[in-house]
């Protein structure tokens, strides 16, 4: 955990400095184009947090360890925050690139779908507060949501048309932009792991305090 914090303290300032000083200004969008270095990592963390929460839920139901359900919840909390940020930054990027804040682009819509799942999950989780089966039922919901995900991957391009986002391998970028983007993705991944470990630690402290109070 200490290593994650140390790495984050190096990687995040490096990503910010590289995004503003090292990467070249985008030809079409100019300086606002630097939003790319924050929007893409945020969208990546939204999906990563969802996947992690789903896998931890599976492990929890399989009885692979204590606190896995609460770690899944903390991952979903971070995921929800990043989903909001990705949607907001994506809307600004969309206005710059395609002229309007919302375009019904499959990838834009997928992020909103993720947000809906997170909100529904937290509604269920808060309704279960204080119940013995809280972790198991909330985990079952996340697993069900994960099972539905591939159907969206199949449906969205069909109903919403092809994505306006550049497809992987088709985006021609100079090496400096590519390196900056990779550093920023790594820094945001470390930030997510750091948030997750901090939330786990505070949760365990809360549990210990509660046990002592009893």
């Amino acid at each position, binding site marked *: 955990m200490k290593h994650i914090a140390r790495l984050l303290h190096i990687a995040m300032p490096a990503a910010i400095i590289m995004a503003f000083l090292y990467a070249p200004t985008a030809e079409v969008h100019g300086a606002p184009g630097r939003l790319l270095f924050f929007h893409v990592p945020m969208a990546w963390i939204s999906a990563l947090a969802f996947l992690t929460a789903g896998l931890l839920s599976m492990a929890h139901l399989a009885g692979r360890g204590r606190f896995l359900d609460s770690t899944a919840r903390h991952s979903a909390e971070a995921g929800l925050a990043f989903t909001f940020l990705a949607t907001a930054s994506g809307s600004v990027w969309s206005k710059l690139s395609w002229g309007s804040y919302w375009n019904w682009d499959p990838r834009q819509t997928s992020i909103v779908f993720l947000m809906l799942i997170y909100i529904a999950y937290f509604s269920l989780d808060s309704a279960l507060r204080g*119940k*013995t089966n809280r972790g*198991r*039922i909330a985990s079952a919901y996340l*697993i*069900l949501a994960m099972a*539905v995900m591939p159907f969206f991957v199949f449906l969205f391009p069909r109903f919403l048309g092809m994505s306006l986002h550049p497809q992987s391998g088709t985006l021609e970028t100079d090496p400096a932009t590519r390196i900056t983007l990779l550093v920023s993705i790594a820094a945001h991944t470390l930030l997510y792991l750091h948030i997750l470990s901090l939330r786990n630690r505070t949760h365990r402290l809360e549990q210990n305090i509660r046990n002592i109070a009893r």
Partner: protein
Amino acid sequence: MVKDIIRNMRKDFRVEFREKSALQIAFSFAFIATLSVGLVMGGASTGARERSIILWLIMFFSAMSGLAHAFVREEEKGTALLLRLTSSPSAVFTAKLLFNLAFFLALQFLITLLFVFFVEGDVASPFPFALTILSGGTALASASTILSAMAARAGVRGALFPVMSLPITLPVLFAATGATAEAMERPGLAPGGDIIFLLAFSGAIIAVSYLVFEYIWIDE
């Protein structure tokens, strides 16, 4: 196992028909919602896409008003504990799923008839239309059954069930509205991939439901 399923299903139908109130409310909701939409539209000309969206929204909210009942009733009346002692989780889930499927298909029959009659929903290809309604209904009922078990265990009434259900059933609404609109406006249409998609969705949801139901139903 089969005997348990039949016994539980028979019990569910008997209780529902004896009490009638839940059935009556669900059918009244479907009836009033469809008629109200027809009246509000007042014969206004709408495209097939808009009509199919309205039809599936009525179906979704009818499912929300009626399908949570099977599990909620067991928790409210305190019979869930007895059910846990006498039947396996798979038998309970199968009985509830079959009950919800039968109940929702009956509800859909009423909604579709009223909708076609009052909203002037001309159907150019009746066979694919009927198949879409059936397969979409199966998908909605399958997803609603496992979600209603979670909502019942949470013990919260009101908006929780629709809030949980909407993100999970969105693929069904997407595919079903598209296929229904096509069946409404294109004559001589052959049943297509959307029906397979809806059946595949039902299959996937039912498979995952069997895997996780035990964890929802049995206390730690």
